[in-house]
């Protein structure tokens, strides 16, 4: 799949040391469009919708906020902790800035752990970007599917 100029610029900004020290790509050397397309196909195969997943991530984030920095058990299954950091982060596509935070959610049933921020939710919802393979903030579709399965 061919990258647009905008995607190439966003890809550059996702590299380590530009917006964040670690970047958004992990060890993934694929083109941005390939990363997005592959995850979109996996979402379709697993019956996931980006909007619904983003909504759920925000629900877990808000639940974790109630713990005031300590983990909170949500609905007897998910352990969520929401932490804040100083400052904001711009989206690599330059369509917004987002409060720096870090949410970690563990599914006590499956053992899956995901880590994300407000920016991660935006990247997923708007750009269908789950982050590159090996990125600690990657929202792996298979893990999301297990965590959202009732």
């Amino acid at each position, binding site marked *: 799949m061919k990258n647009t100029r905008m995607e190439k610029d966003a890809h550059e900004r996702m590299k380590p040391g530009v917006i964040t020290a670690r970047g958004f790509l992990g*060890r993934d050397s694929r083109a941005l469009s390939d990363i997005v397309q592959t995850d979109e196909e996996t979402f379709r195969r697993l019956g996931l919708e980006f909007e619904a997943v983003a909504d759920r991530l925000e629900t877990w984030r808000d639940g974790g906020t109630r713990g*005031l920095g300590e983990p909170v058990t949500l609905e007897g299954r998910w352990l969520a902790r929401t932490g804040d*950091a*100083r400052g904001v982060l*711009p989206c690599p596509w330059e369509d917004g800035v987002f409060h720096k935070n*870090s949410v*970690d959610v563990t599914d006590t049933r499956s053992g899956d*752990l995901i*880590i994300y921020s407000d920016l991660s939710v935006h990247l997923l919802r708007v750009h269908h970007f789950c982050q590159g393979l090996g990125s600690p*903030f990657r929202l792996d579709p298979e893990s999301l599917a297990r965590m959202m399965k009732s």
Partner: protein
Amino acid sequence: MSPLLIGPLATGAISGLLALVIALTDRVVNNYGEVTMDINGGKKSLKVKGGSPMLGTLGSEGIFVPSACGGRGSCGACKVRVLSDVGPVLPTETPYLTPQEISQNVRLSCQIKLKKDIQIEIPDELFYVKKYTAKVESIRDLTYDIKEVRVLLKNPSSMEYIPGQYAQLVTPPYEDIPESVQRAYSMSSRPGEPDHVELLVRLVPGGIATSWVFKYLKVGMDMELVGPFGEFRVHDTPAAMICVAGGSGMAPFWSMFRDMKEKNTFPEKEIWYFFGARSSRDMFFLDELRALEKEMPRFHFVPALSESKPEENWTGDTGLITDVLDRYLKGKIDPSRPKEGYLCGSPGMINACIDVMIRNAIPESGIYYDKFA
């Protein structure tokens, strides 16, 4: 010459020529020569090479303005007041500056490029901030996700600081992190032991500095610290201290309480310390703080669990720390005594505690905290 080669060769020649023009233009246009930095009305004057951001230039001259993002303009911590004209506030700065700060010419030092002589104001305390090399003496697991790191300062070999202040831990490049990173941690050590610094580090999943500490930092290794920073400290008033923390927010209080006991400072101050955790496995320093209660009768320790389970046999307070605080302020702490708040934790926890304190007649001007993650 083959006509097929003419196109690529011409393109290459034009590109090379353009690159040369850009390089020459850059040398001429972006050569700002030597720039004079006047700091705090002549208190310090630096002659530096122009063209670089102010934050890094100050750091290379031994003046360390706090920063948590390495100068990327994403933390908003490196504020300085600029007294000379450096142009309008940049779009990269506006998210971090209040209208009042903008009217006072407060700027992010990482976003200001030094192009001509400049006058700035910084807190005088920053003149005393130094970069230290230190040797790790011990690393102790306080819980499954909190470590106490104790270091011996080597160069300089001692640090003067006030209990409640913080240092920035410098992590080297590692794994896929290509650059050094600094993160702020309150010092839990006592100033009475100036050749040592202790930090409490809680593992943040995906966190750069905490992951490095948990994975790579070992006893015997050398590391770097920058400090001390911060305004958080005990205030010399007769008001009772109402202190609230969770997790590694314990650090400044562990430093303050031990220092107060050791030096018998602020002897008229009654101290209430509320410490919140989710479960008993998240609690630490329980024995030490209960011992301190016995040794210092004016000190009251209130640990509370938000999700205690019957099998934990927890006999202390339960509930969110804000609810516990509210109960004590309403029914157990002398309402006639003036009080002031001391908070260390996430911004969410701090905001929630401020609400509870204000509802219970603690004036907002008497609530002190350092808000960082």
